[in-house]
C-alpha cells in the first residue's frame, strides 16, 4: 500500500474540481440511488464532501470512502442538472483511479481486467466455451423476453433473470467485414461493443442489414477490444489505455467516415472519455480523430443519412427507454425515437414520470445488485404502465437490465434495440 500522504496529495489535485460544488443539494432530485436510500453518502454532494474530507485528512479511511464512491451508477443525471456545473463524472473517475491505485483491486477482478479484458481473442474463446456450457446451469425464465435463471443456487447469479450468452456470437457469425461504400458514398467503421457481440448478435446483424439497405460500406475488423469503461470506472487506468490503444491500431487499418456503435455506453466512452483519460499523449491526434467521428447508430441514421420518421396509420406503441449515456452525456434523445418511427410500423411511447436510469450502471449491477434491482423494478413498472407490447432502447446494457426486471416482475414484454425494430421493416 502506498503512502497515505501520497494519496492525499493526489486527491488535492481534485481540489479545484471539488470546490465548485456549492452543496446546494439539488443532485438529490436527480440521483436514482438517493431516491431509494435517502442517504447523503449515496448522493453526489455527499460523495464530493467525502472526497474533500479525505483530501483534507478529516477522514482517514480511504477504504470507507471508496466503498461509498462505488455506490454510483455513473448515469450522469446529476451532472447534467448541476446548477454549478460540477464535473461529477470526471471527479468520480479520477478519484476511483486514485483510490484504486492506492488500495488495489481484489485479485480476481484485477486478473479479469489485466489478463482477460486486454486479450480479446482469449476472452472470446473463453466466453464461447461458457456459452456452450451455460445450459447445464440455467433454465428458461420467460420465453417471450428470452431470459433464463439459475438452475441451482448460484451466488453470482442470485435471482437474476438474465439473457444468456448467444449460442453464436456476432464475431463468429460475421468475423469481419470490409465492404465498399455504395450509393451513399459513405463508409462506416462498426464497433458493436462487448454486449452486442456476445449477448445480442442480432443487434449487430440489424446494423449490418441497415447499412446494406442504405448502401453504406462497412469496415468491421476482427478481435475488437472492449471500449474500456469497465476498467476505467474501476480505476484500472493502465488496462483502459491498453484497450484504447488496441482499438486505435485496429481501426487505423481501414478508411472510413464515421465510427458507429449500437451501444450508448460505448459511444459515450469513445466520444468523451477516450480523449480525456487516454494516458498516451503522443496518440492525442488519433484519439481525437476517433472521438470526433464516433456516432450512435440512430444519430448516424437520422443526422447523416437523414432517415426520417414515416407516417403510419396505426403504429404499434413501443415503450422507449433513454439510456443515460445518450441522454445525459451526449444529449441524444430525438434520433432514436425518429428511427423507431422510420419503418412506418412503430411509434415511441413515453414512460410516465419521464426518463430515468434503469439501474444497470455496469459493474454497479454486480456490486450492488439489490439497489440496482429496486431501481430497475420501477423502470419495469413504468414500461408496463405505457401499455406497450414492446420495449426498446439504444444500449445493450440497458437491454440486459430491463429484460431482467420485466421478466422478474412478470411483464412479458420483449426488449429490443431500436435498430432491430427498424431493420425488421426493411
Amino acid at each position, binding site marked *: 500500500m502506498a503512502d497515505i500522504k501520497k494519496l492525499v496529495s493526489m486527491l488535492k489535485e481534485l481540489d*479545484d474540481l471539488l*470546490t*465548485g460544488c*456549492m*452543496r*446546494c*443539494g*439539488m443532485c*438529490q*432530485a436527480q440521483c436514482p440511488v438517493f431516491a431509494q436510500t*435517502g*442517504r*447523503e*453518502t449515496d448522493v453526489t454532494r*455527499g460523495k464530493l*464532501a*467525502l472526497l474533500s*474530507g479525505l483530501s483534507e485528512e*478529516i*477522514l*482517514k*479511511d480511504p477504504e*470507507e*470512502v471508496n466503498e*461509498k464512491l462505488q455506490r454510483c451508477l455513473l448515469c450522469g443525471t446529476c451532472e447534467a442538472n448541476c*446548477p*454549478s*456545473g460540477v464535473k461529477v463524472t470526471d471527479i468520480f473517475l479520477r478519484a476511483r483511479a486514485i483510490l484504486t491505485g492506492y488500495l488495489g483491486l481484489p485479485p480476481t477482478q484485477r486478473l479479469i481486467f489485466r489478463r482477460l479484458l486486454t486479450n480479446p481473442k482469449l476472452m472470446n474463446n473463453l466466453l464461447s466455451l461458457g456459452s456452450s456450457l451455460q445450459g447445464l446451469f440455467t433454465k428458461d425464465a420467460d420465453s417471450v423476453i428470452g431470459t433464463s435463471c439459475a438452475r441451482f443456487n448460484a451466488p453470482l447469479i442470485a435471482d437474476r433473470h438474465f439473457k444468456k450468452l448467444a449460442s453464436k456470437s456476432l464475431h463468429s457469425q460475421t468475423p469481419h467485414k470490409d465492404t465498399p461504400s455504395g450509393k451513399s458514398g459513405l463508409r462506416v467503421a462498426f464497433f458493436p461493443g462487448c454486449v452486442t457481440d456476445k449477448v445480442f448478435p442480432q443487434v449487430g446483424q440489424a446494423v449490418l442489414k441497415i447499412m446494406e439497405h442504405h448502401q453504406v460500406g462497412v469496415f468491421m475488423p476482427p478481435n475488437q477490444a472492449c471500449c474500456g469503461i469497465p476498467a476505467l470506472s474501476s480505476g484500472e487506468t493502465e488496462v483502459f489505455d491498453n484497450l484504447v490503444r488496441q482499438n486505435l491500431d485496429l481501426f487505423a487499418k481501414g478508411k472510413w467516415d464515421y465510427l458507429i456503435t449500437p451501444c450508448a455506453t460505448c459511444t459515450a466512452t469513445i466520444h468523451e472519455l477516450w480523449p480525456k483519460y487516454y494516458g498516451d499523449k503522443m496518440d492525442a491526434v488519433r484519439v481525437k480523430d476517433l472521438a470526433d467521428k464516433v456516432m450512435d447508430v440512430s444519430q448516424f441514421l437520422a443526422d447523416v443519412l437523414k432517415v426520417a420518421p414515416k407516417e403510419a396509420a396505426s403504429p404499434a406503441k413501443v415503450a422507449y427507454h433513454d439510456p443515460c449515456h445518450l441522454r445525459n452525456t451526449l444529449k441524444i434523445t430525438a434520433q432514436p425515437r425518429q428511427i423507431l418511427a422510420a419503418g412506418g410500423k412503430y411509434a415511441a411511447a413515453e414512460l410516465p414520470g419521464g426518463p430515468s436510469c434503469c439501474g444497470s450502471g455496469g459493474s454497479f449491477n454486480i456490486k450492488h445488485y439489490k439497489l440496482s434491482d429496486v431501481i430497475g423494478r420501477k423502470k419495469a413498472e413504468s414500461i408496463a404502465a405505457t401499455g406497450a407490447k414492446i420495449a426498446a432502447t439504444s444500449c445493450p446494457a440497458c437491454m440486459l437490465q430491463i429484460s431482467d426486471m420485466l421478466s422478474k416482475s412478470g411483464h412479458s414484454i420483449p426488449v429490443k434495440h431500436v435498430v432491430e425494430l427498424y431493420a425488421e421493416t426493411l
Partner: protein
Amino acid sequence: MIRDALKNEFQRIVGKDNVMTEPAELHAYSYDSAVLDQTQPAIVVRPENSESLGQVVKLCNENGLKLTVRGAGTNLSGGTIPHPGGVVCLTTALDKVLEINEEDLYAVVQPGAVTAKFAAQVAAKGLLYPPDPGSQAVSTLGGNVAENAGGLRALKYGVTKDYVMGVDFFDVNGELIRSGGKTVKCVTGYNLAGLMVASEGTLGVFEKLILKLVPPPAAYKAMMAVFPDVMDASRAVAAIIANKIVPATLEFMDNFTIRTVENFRKAGLPVDAAAMLLIEVDGHPAQVEDDAAKVESICKENKAISVRVAKDDAERNAVWQARRDALPALARVKPTTVLEDATVPRSKIPAMMQALDRIAKKYDLTIGTFGHAGDGNLHPTILTDKRDQKEWHRVEAAIDAIFEEALALGGTLSGEHGIGLAKSKYLKNEYGVGAINYSRRMKSVLDPNNILNPGKILGPLLA
C-alpha cells in the same frame, strides 16, 4: 463518541440499518448548503415512522443529546448543521403525502415529503400549493415550515406560514402535541402551529403538517421589461404596486446577473440593460389581460427600453428560464457562492441597490444581485473563493455591512433563508435584547436540557 448502550437503544428504536456511526457517514451530515464550518454529529438516525421519531426525541432528551432534525439539508443559514457530537435525525423516510382533501382544500403530509413532488400531486388534483422555494425540487415541507420558506410567488400568494393550518409535533419528552386543524377558522388555544413556523427545529420536532391548498389561477401572462437604470426599474416596481396591481411574481436582475446569464445560456438577453424585471400576472382571463396591459404601460412610463409580453407557453418559459438561470450562471463564475437574502421594504430597493454597489466597491468583491423585487427580498450573491483567505475576510465584512444596511433601511435580516447559525449574531440589531431574552426564557421552559437544535437563532445559551 456515543456510548454503545445508547447506540443499541437507537438501533432498537429505528432498526440497525437506520443508525449510522461510521466516520464517512457522520462526515456526510456535517454540513448543509450554508457556507459555514462543518461540525460532525456522533450519530445519525433515520426513523421510518412517527412512533420511532417520538422515541428518538425522548431518548435524546433523557440523555441530554443535542438533536438536529434534517430533511434535504438545503438550509442556507446553517440551521441543519449539527451540534458537535450531537444527533442528526433524518426525515427522508417520513416522506408520505397522507391526504389531499379536495372538498375542504387542505393536505396532510409527513415532514420529509419533498415540496415539488407534493406540489405536483396537488396540481394533478387541479389545486395549487403556492409556496415555491428555489430549492423545491429537493427541499422538504418540514424544512419549509421550520424556516418559513418563501419563493417566487410570495408577492401575491404569501410564504409558507400563510399555508400552515396545523402542525403536530413532539415535545422534548416525546409527547405528541397537536395544534391547529383542518378548518379555515380555528382559534383554539395558543397558536402553537404559528409558533412552530420559523422555529428552525428549536422548539419541537414535526410529526405531521396540515397545509392549505387554493384553486389555481385560470390564466397567466409573463413579461420581461428592460431598463436603462436600476432606479427606473425600482420605480416601476413601486408604481405597479401603487396602481393596485399585485403580480404573482415580480423578479429583478441586475446588469451583472444579466450578463452572466447571457454568457451562460446565449438566449439573447439585453446585456447593456442596467436591470430587468420579470413579471407574471395571473387570475381571471379578463383581469389578466387588463393587468398585463397596465403593467406594460407602467413599465414604459418608467422608461423601460422594451417590454416583451410572452405570446405563448414557450415564450413564457423563456422568460422564466432567464430567472432560473440566475443562480446556476452566477455559481459558475467562482468556486464559492454566498447567497444572501437581506430584505427591505420594497420602496427601499433603489437605496439597497445603491448600498450593495457601494459595498461591492468598498470590499473589492463581485456581487450579482437578483431576487424578488416585488416583496423587497433581494439575493445579493457574492462570488468568491473561500480558499483565498484575504478575500474571505472581506466577504465576511461585506456580509456584516449588507445586514447593517438592510436594517438601517427598515428591513430584515432574512426574507426566507432563516437565521440559523449564520445570522444569530445580528439578531439583537433587529429586535433588541428583549425579544431575545423572551425567546430564551420560552425555550428554557419548553426545552430545559437545550437539546433541540441548540445555537440556532438565539446563539449559544447560558447554562
